[in-house]
């Protein structure tokens, strides 16, 4: 009854950043800001002893629970959760990939809608996170900065006049802020513009990553664009630049789609239609094929080919088809990949049961 329970509870929640509408959310699925903060006078987590980890968890739990943002709080000790439960949290993007394998005392505090959360003892004492649907970094910054202000009234943060907020990894010092936007870019991928785009983004000092971890660059045509530098620019400058670049990318993605629709309509319809057929009728489907086909289906929804399908259903499927959620929903651990592929296909067929293609 101790472990498992809290995760079963959140599994029933709708995930705000997937289920809500937001500005430009046809292409910008979600925006997120993370702030790294450490307690002054305490060793950073990579260096601290287990006893210090525990006391940091206790201290920060009290402080977080006193914040209005976390009044309907959800608190869970990460190190007491099963690997599967941690994976579910990672797939919902409330904890990082590195956090999943933590053995030392660490914890997560978050709001009921999962929009705001605090990782305690990841590689920094605190990683504040705020994630919302669509492109709205400015709004997220206001929210997270307010929480940060309240925290800094109660806690002395590790801070240096010259280097800003001090973090265990020097890549995060200064603002301690990582802002990112998750983009769905099938148009740029299909028209083979994506590598050029990635190079351009890299030259601007921004990072592009696949969202499913190392080496998953093209899976689902989902990309996360974030700032690299955290020192020497203010939070507003970083956010404004990111926002400008993202708007450019969205513009190019849209014009790619328009042009394909005009000049190679059959190619595009074929791409979407085949994916739809696979999702609707497959009995065995791998995670990668599912994510790629869902990307094509999402493109079809954006282009008005499926009026009976809500884009948020497709968004949610991006999470539900991943191994953690699949096993959790089945109520058991499933080691056999083929068995998971069968379950995945069944889940997708069920979700798309009432969907029809529009005539035309």
């Amino acid at each position: 009854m101790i472990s498992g329970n809290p995760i079963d509870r959140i599994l029933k929640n709708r995930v705000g950043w997937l289920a809500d509408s937001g500005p430009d959310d046809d292409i910008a699925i979600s925006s997120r800001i993370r702030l790294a903060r450490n307690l002054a006078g305490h060793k950073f987590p990579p260096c601290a002893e287990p006893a210090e980890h525990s006391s940091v968890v206790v201290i920060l739990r009290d402080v977080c629970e006193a914040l209005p943002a976390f009044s309907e709080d959800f608190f869970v000790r990460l190190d007491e959760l099963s690997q599967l439960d941690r994976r579910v949290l990672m797939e919902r993007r409330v904890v990082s990939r590195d956090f999943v394998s933590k053995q030392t005392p660490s914890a997560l505090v978050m709001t009921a809608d999962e929009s705001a959360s605090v990782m305690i003892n990841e590689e920094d004492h605190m990683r504040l996170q705020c994630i919302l649907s669509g492109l709205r970094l400015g709004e997220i910054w206001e929210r997270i900065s307010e929480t940060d202000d309240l925290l800094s009234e109660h806690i002395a943060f590790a801070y240096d006049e010259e280097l800003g907020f001090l973090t265990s990894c020097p890549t995060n010092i200064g603002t301690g802020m990582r802002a990112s936007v998750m983009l769905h870019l099938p148009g740029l991928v299909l028209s083979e513009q994506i590598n050029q785009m990635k190079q351009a983004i890299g030259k601007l000092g921004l990072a592009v990553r696949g969202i499913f971890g190392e080496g998953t660059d093209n899976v689902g045509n989902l990309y996360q664009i974030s700032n690299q530098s955290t020192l020497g620019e203010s939070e507003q400058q970083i956010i404004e630049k990111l926002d400008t670049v993202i708007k450019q990318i969205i513009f190019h993605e849209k014009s790619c789609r328009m042009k394909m629709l005009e000049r190679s309509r059959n190619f595009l319809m074929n791409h979407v239609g085949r994916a739809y057929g696979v999702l609707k009728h497959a009995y065995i489907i791998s995670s990668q094929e599912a994510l790629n086909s869902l990307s094509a289906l999402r493109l079809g929804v954006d282009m008005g080919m499926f009026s009976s399908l809500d884009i948020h259903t497709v968004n949610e499927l991006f999470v539900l088809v991943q191994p953690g959620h699949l096993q959790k929903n089945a109520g058991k651990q499933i080691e056999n990949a083929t068995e998971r592929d069968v379950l995945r296909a069944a889940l997708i067929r069920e979700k798309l049961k009432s969907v029809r293609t529009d005539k035309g």
Partner: protein
Amino acid sequence: MLCEICGKNEATIHIQEFINSKKKVLHICKVCAEGKAAAKEMLSGIDLAQLMLNISSELPPGLAIQKNESVEAAESPPMKCPSCGWDIVRFTNTGRLGCSDCFKTFRPILDQAIRNMHKGCMHVGKKPASAKGASQDRMSQLIALQKKLDDHVRREEYEKAARTRDKIARLKDSLKNRSRGRKDDKWQSD
């Protein structure tokens, strides 16, 4: 052989391409070849990279350098942080530092690395809200009480533990009210 793009149809068309000045043969199906040709045609004329570059006003040369560059160990005395004991070996192996003072200890090798990673070397963003005396006090009080509670429980002094627990609850309430109060102030000043 299956098509290298869709992985479904038989590859019947073989295209030579030059990628990064290396010749590569692409085996694809008829459907994908048509799509590819269409895509090529419609996108010629858009120089995306140029377009994107126009947005950035100035770009420091340091940014082009990879962030995971290995840091060379300083020559003679092995650096070790006097506050936390973190040493140069652990720093180079993990890329992580052990505490705030490590930034002073490893400053000589950090400086160059920081210049490569970041736009500047001087923080210009927000500062922590000036830690207000009262709540700081309450915070350290809370930490002390928590330790006291642990001690009482360990020594099985349950009455004392209960009293300490009450004190903690009251203190947490006052912290909570303070946060709310502040939030209200903010709304009014808007």
